[in-house]
């Protein structure tokens, strides 16, 4: 094994009596690409903060380059070469690439005056070191997220980074950009610089890392070589539960007509020539990377993004869906991707959130809102979807991600939709809740609902859909039955078309 750069030994930390970390040990070798994975609340962030010196551990020690630190301060961590790149990157959008790369260095040197040539030289040197070219005068806000990350990496390298910790670096970038980022990381590895990825996306973890450390409930589950892990074992280690997900079986009834049919639907810059059908009881997966047009297509079906041309048929008759209200009247529902902003009134009670779509049904004979009926409806849905809450009066923001998503689901199910478009229904939800939501979705399909499930997670669509459509750059490039394709094959299709 390579020489160790960082060793963490028996580190524990409690917040207000709750153990966030419990005797965790791990080590990172020089030049190693290491992944730290765990679900929300597993202690990942606490561990990073301890390594950065921002949080003091209750016990345990940290050994960097054979120097033992009992009380690591932020300044020690930085001077030993540990640089954390937070999820928001902490860049200045309004300043040039050169200045973003060099500014921290100048601040550290306690400069009073600015030498612009020096700023350029520093930035140029570091960019050429990682063999990438970005226009030094460009404002950072005009860069792609991948290039922004490069700027952040350069800034870290200037401060003599030996270990770069990247917090959820791949959440908002496309697969192509992940590959690009990876090429930079591999280059750093050659220079002996280690990288620690912190992530909860399983597929990319396996693609990137050499070693993986799994945390669960503040304890280390274990260290593994990445090649001895697969999706199922990793998700088992992370959740501690053996998730048995049965594949979705759909039996087509002969002669059944499509409830939704889309013909040659196009919208400039979003998608082109989209054709597909949805039959009752089907779950059709729509998979594609961020920016492939999948969400735009869904919005068009729900009347929120007017298409330029093409036709939409519902139950065989041509319709024009130009507002969400119209979509709802036609029996469509839409679960937005960003459930916190678009799907929930966070400060309102669960009860109010649940009934907001069906207020008309709750009126009494004086056309006033009946509290009795409101309670009855809300209670019914909380029971049906197993929403875990102490009371109906709790504010929606107090719920866990999985329960919040169920509230949003229930809210739309209450309208009795015939068709349901789910945009990334399980994003950011822990594995057990994910499974629960998948079961709800399958049950709905069994009851005859037609479902379109948008996702960028391969296992999610392969295991929960009967048909899969792959969307790349605005076109559906492949349509296949789920039983006819493996996760690996789907992965290849997605990554090969990305590289074009």
């Amino acid at each position: 094994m390579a020489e160790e750069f960082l060793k963490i030994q028996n580190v524990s930390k409690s917040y207000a009596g709750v153990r966030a970390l419990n005797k965790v040990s791990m080590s990172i070798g020089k030049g190693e690409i290491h992944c730290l994975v765990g679900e929300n609340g597993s202690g990942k962030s606490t561990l990073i903060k301890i390594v950065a010196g921002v949080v003091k551990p209750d016990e345990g020690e940290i050994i960097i380059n054979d120097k033992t630190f009992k009380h690591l301060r932020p300044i020690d961590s930085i001077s030993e070469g540990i640089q954390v790149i937070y999820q928001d990157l902490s860049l200045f959008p309004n300043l040039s690439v050169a200045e973003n790369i060099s500014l921290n260095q100048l601040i550290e040197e306690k400069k009073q005056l600015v030498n612009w040539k020096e700023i350029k030289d520093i930035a140029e040197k570091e960019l050429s070191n990682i063999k990438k070219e970005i226009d030094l005068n460009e404002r950072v806000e005009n860069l792609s997220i991948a290039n922004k990350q490069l700027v952040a990496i350069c800034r870290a390298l200037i401060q003599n980074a030996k270990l770069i910790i990247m917090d959820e670096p791949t959440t908002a970038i496309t697969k192509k950009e992940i590959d690009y980022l990876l090429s930079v990381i591999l280059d750093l590895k050659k220079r002996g610089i280690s990288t620690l990825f912190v992530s909860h996306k399983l597929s990319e973890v396996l693609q990137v890392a050499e070693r993986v450390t799994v945390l669960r409930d503040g304890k280390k589950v274990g260290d593994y070589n990445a090649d001895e892990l697969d999706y199922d074992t990793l998700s088992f280690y992370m959740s501690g539960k053996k998730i048995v997900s049965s594949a979705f079986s759909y039996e087509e009834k002969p002669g059944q007509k499509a409830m939704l049919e889309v013909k040659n639907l196009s919208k400039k810059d979003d998608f082109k020539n989209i054709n597909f059908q949805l039959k009752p009881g089907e779950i059709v997966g729509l998979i594609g990377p961020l920016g492939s047009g999948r969400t735009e297509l869904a919005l068009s079906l729900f009347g929120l993004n007017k298409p330029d041309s093409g036709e939409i048929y519902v139950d065989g008759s041509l319709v024009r869906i130009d507002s969400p209200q119209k979509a709802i009247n036609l029996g469509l529902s839409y679960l937005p991707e960003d459930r916190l902003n678009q799907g929930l009134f966070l400060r309102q009670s669960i009860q109010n959130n649940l009934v907001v779509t069906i207020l008309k049904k709750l009126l009494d004979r004086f056309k006033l809102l009946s509290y009795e009926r409101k309670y009855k409806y809300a209670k019914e849905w909380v029971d049906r979807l197993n929403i875990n809450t102490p009371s109906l009066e709790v504010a929606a923001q107090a719920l866990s991600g999985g329960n919040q998503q169920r509230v949003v689901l229930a809210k739309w199910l209450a309208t009795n939709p015939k068709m349901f478009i789910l945009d990334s229904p399980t994003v950011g939800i822990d594995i057990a809740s994910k499974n629960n939501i998948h079961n709800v979705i399958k049950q709905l399909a069994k009851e005859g609902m037609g479902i379109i499930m948008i996702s960028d997670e391969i296992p999610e669509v392969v295991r929960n859909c009967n048909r899969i459509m792959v969307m790349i750059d605005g076109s559906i490039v492949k349509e296949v039955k789920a039983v006819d394709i493996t996760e690996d094959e789907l992965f290849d299709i997605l990554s090969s078309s990305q590289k074009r």
Partner: protein
Amino acid sequence: MMTNNKNFQIQRIFAQNESYLLLIIIAYSIFVTFLNPSFLSLGNLFNLSKSSASMGVLAIGVFVVLLSGGIDISFTAIAISGQYIAVNVLIASGVDNIFFAFLISCLVGVGLGAINGLLVSYFKIPTLIVTLGTLNVFHGLLLTVVGTKAVNSAQLPDCFKAFGATNVFTLTGPDGVSYGLSIFTVIFIAVALLTWFILKYTMLGRGIYAIGGDAEAAERAGLNVARIKFFIYCYVGILAGIAGVIHVSLIRYSNPTYLVGTELSVIAPVVLGGTRITGGVGTVIGTILGVAMITLLNNSLILIGLSSFWQEFFTGLIVAISVSFSSYQSRRGIAI
């Protein structure tokens, strides 16, 4: 690679708001000259630069605050406080010296600015609320404690009048009328140069840009955000103090109810000059062009023969249009 870079730079110059504004100013000047040939005389231009100097100095201050992502609307109250107190102290003490007037006015300015700075940087109150409050507090205090009586030209110490008449050089036109470049203009240029230098070549200045871009990132990068903010509001105070003295020297009349209420006409040129209202983006040259444009507009309305009440209308319109324009650009992802 090099030529590539050059091309980029040329493109960038054309993509900038400032170049558009300059073109508009030139086109508009030609238009006005057609209607009234006396517009483009050197004498009129010197006059314009003299009468707009006080607004220009204030605008530079507002520009710096906007750049940091904040806003200051109490600067008019600070300017009039500095001016009115300076005038009264000079009268009471009998010291008839313009430097003394500047000293007092700037001290008042920096003191009041420091109050804004403290509230903004240490108590982290939103800048609009702070300065909306202090605008009224400062002005209310001035009127109740110092007084409400205007000082007319006859009572005004001579140094103001002499200062107002000072030209750096004087030319005599063919018609025998002499005109010159006022010292006001020189002060405005000096303030602009100083501000440009601070913003471009000091870490303090880069810090102001950084805070305007992302205050939290600035904090993480190790910048002393509270101290920089404190500086900004004190700086605005000093500039307001300077502008106050220029203002009284120009109109030879000190009325404590003047200036307050004209905040928008100072914010307008800054926004017009391409400074982003959300902070982080803007240049001194843009602000100067903005001041030039607004001055030009106000002046030409009279030359064209429109009532001066239209000024208010156009000022408001310009703010609305330029803010919508830059928001539209940023929404479409166009680099400005």
